[in-house]
């Protein structure tokens, strides 16, 4: 039974894609696949970035698993993971959310020995280091909430214990987005967000946990506040940070704040805003309308985030096996390629390489000049030949992360101050 399933998977891969031989070889031979998973349905939810119907279609094709996807916004995702444990089998959440959700006991730890490509997962998610020389950025770095001490573990541990809370799926380094045509000069620092030159034309996102980090990047760059750890501020640091931004808000620095992805796209595309916090696919969306927009690398570094898949505590038996099979498939390359061609990074980049053209791999991962048009998986042209990615290669971008999205010890206090900022 078990071998049949494996054979079926390999054969399909071989038939499907050009790089299939390579793909198949990345699957270790003695892998024990789950039972026949044909009619199993797994319910997954997460943010819109990775909950894409294409993934569900492909997993049905490759593994026969029915994947029901629900895409929600960041806050709703947390809400669901924490309050409705029976409504999902697989939670696709951000690492900093894990800090909130794990203590509820709604997720179960995963056995790393069942993850075929575990050893190939990027260091950021295992020991925190991108390369052996890297320093670990501030904030909730994924590896700090990535492991627990055993199958029933409730406390996070700081080593690769073999029991994972989340399997990393997608991550990126965020920075400010700008309209180069409307600014007309180089932007190199986070301080520009509060530059009076852009009065009434700046924006920041109204999601407190992420917005506060962008604020901190700005305040630190201005030299106004020195943080012990931007990802875990003291009350005093929060007060100072919010005070600086409240003053700017009252002076009319901001045109608007945005909460959803589309809002940020519209603000930028309409020219209401020329500099703002932004997410990578939003830049892509503005560009695909033919409007110039740059994801500006800044000298102080990036604010980074990472997402992963967690298993519901109630998963067991066949469904659990299917979930492991799904995770192994997820890391085996196709999804990674699909996500990387949108500008995200995959947890196991080397497997994704087989599902990308040389030009795409060079542009997205290696930061090389493109040799032909770069198109998104949905067919939109994102860049022409001879262009390079904003920020350069994977190692340039992920190596310059200054802090990770996080949940602070003083989170409740921060949220209250955030509300004051919005109401100010």
């Amino acid at each position, binding site marked *: 039974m078990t071998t049949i399933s494996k054979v079926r998977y390999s054969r399909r891969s071989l038939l499907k894609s050009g790089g299939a031989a390579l793909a198949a070889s990345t699957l270790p031979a003695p892998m024990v696949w789950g039972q026949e998973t044909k009619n199993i349905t797994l319910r997954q939810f997460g943010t819109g970035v990775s909950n894409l119907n294409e993934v569900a279609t492909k997993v049905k094709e490759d593994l026969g698993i029915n994947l029901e996807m629900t895409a929600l916004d960041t806050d709703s995702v947390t809400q669901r993971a924490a309050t409705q444990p029976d409504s999902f089998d697989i939670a696709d959440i951000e690492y900093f959310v894990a800090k909130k959700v794990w203590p509820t006991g709604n997720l179960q730890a995963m056995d790393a020995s069942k993850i075929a490509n575990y050893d190939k997962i990027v260091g950021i998610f295992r020991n925190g280091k991108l390369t052996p020389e890297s320093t670990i950025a501030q904030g909730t770095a994924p590896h700090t909430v990535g492991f627990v001490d055993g199958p029933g573990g409730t406390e996070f541990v700081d080593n690769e214990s073999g029991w994972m809370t989340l399997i990393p799926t997608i991550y990126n380094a965020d920075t400010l987005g700008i309209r180069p045509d409307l600014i007309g000069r180089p932007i190199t620092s986070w301080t520009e967000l509060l530059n009076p030159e852009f009065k009434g034309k700046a924006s920041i996102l109204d999601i407190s946990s992420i917005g506060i980090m962008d604020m901190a990047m700005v305040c630190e760059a201005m030299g106004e506040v020195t943080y012990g750890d931007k990802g875990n501020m003291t009350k005093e640091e929060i007060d100072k940070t919010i005070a600086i931004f409240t003053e700017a808000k009252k002076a009319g620095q901001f045109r608007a704040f*945005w909460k959803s992805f589309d809002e940020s796209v519209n603000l930028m595309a309409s020219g209401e805003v020329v500099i703002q916090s932004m997410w990578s696919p939003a830049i892509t969306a503005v560009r695909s309308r033919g409007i110039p927009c740059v994801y500006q690398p800044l000298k102080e570094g990036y604010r980074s985030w990472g997402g992963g898949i967690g298993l519901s505590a109630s998963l067991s038996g066949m469904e659990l096996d299917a979930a492991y099979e799904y995770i192994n498939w997820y890391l085996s390359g196709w999804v990674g390629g699909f996500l990387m061609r949108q500008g995200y990074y995959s947890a196991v980049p080397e497997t994704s390489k087989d599902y990308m053209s040389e030009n795409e791999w060079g542009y997205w991962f290696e930061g090389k000049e493109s040799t032909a048009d770069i198109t998104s998986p949905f067919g939109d042209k994102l860049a022409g030949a001879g262009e390079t990615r904003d920020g350069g290669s994977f190692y340039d971008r992920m190596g310059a992360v200054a802090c990770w999205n996080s949940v602070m010890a003083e989170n409740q206090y921060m*949220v209250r101050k955030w*509300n004051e900022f919005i109401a100010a």
Partner: protein
Amino acid sequence: MSKQITAWLQAAPMAFVLLGFLVAPIIMIAIVSFWGATEYSIYPTFQLDNYEFLFSSPVTYTVFLNTFKYTAITWIITLLIGFSVAYFLAFEVRSLKWQIGLFLLCTIPFWTSNIIRMISWIPFLGRNGLANSALISMGVIDEPLEWLLFSDFSVILAFVHLYTLFMVVPIFNSMMRIDRSLIEAARDNGASGWQTLRHVIMPLCKPGVMIGTIFVTTLVMGDFITVRFMSGSQRANVGRLISNDISLLQYPSASATAVVLLCTVLIVIALLLRLVDIRKEL
């Protein structure tokens, strides 16, 4: 079966629906408002922390004040427009056919959703939007007007646009029920047009005005999405305070705010009802 029992039975289905879907949830909200919350869960207890924080925070007062401001301004404008439109429909338009036709015309925008009607203002009012480019090409202004969008102006504009019909309908209804011979009598006794309006029509429209007022007040005070979109998240009202709390899993604190808001709205309505006895007037 006695008449009384029949009456009780007839009222029962509605009563059960209201009990189950209105009263019970409100009681739940009131109970949860005394609970405690952590980052990720809520736990039953009896504490006043939520209320204590609410009443001690300056944000609460700013935000409530803001909510009242929006309500008051929206009310005045919708009342003026609503009354004028209803007056025109009821007294200036003579044939019933036209009255009904024009009335239906007023409702056409309501065939699309609230959110769509609201959001469609954004490209119109934007820096490079239709309003600004029209004004610039007419030579009225040189620089685009920044305050058209993402300001109190745009919030109130959207409220007025969304809720004026709720004023028109009850006032129109009241006006249609005014006995025309009363107006003739006023004229026969030498009253000017203004005097007729002031002393005959306006007093008789009071119930309609009051019903419209209740609609507009409750809708504006309970709103959160209009304020969020039209102010570009830069302004806050009570609804936004609650929605922020909910998205951060702070249900008890959201409940406490909701209870305070509910009480405020009820007090406002009670005051309004003291001014006009709707039951008597209807």
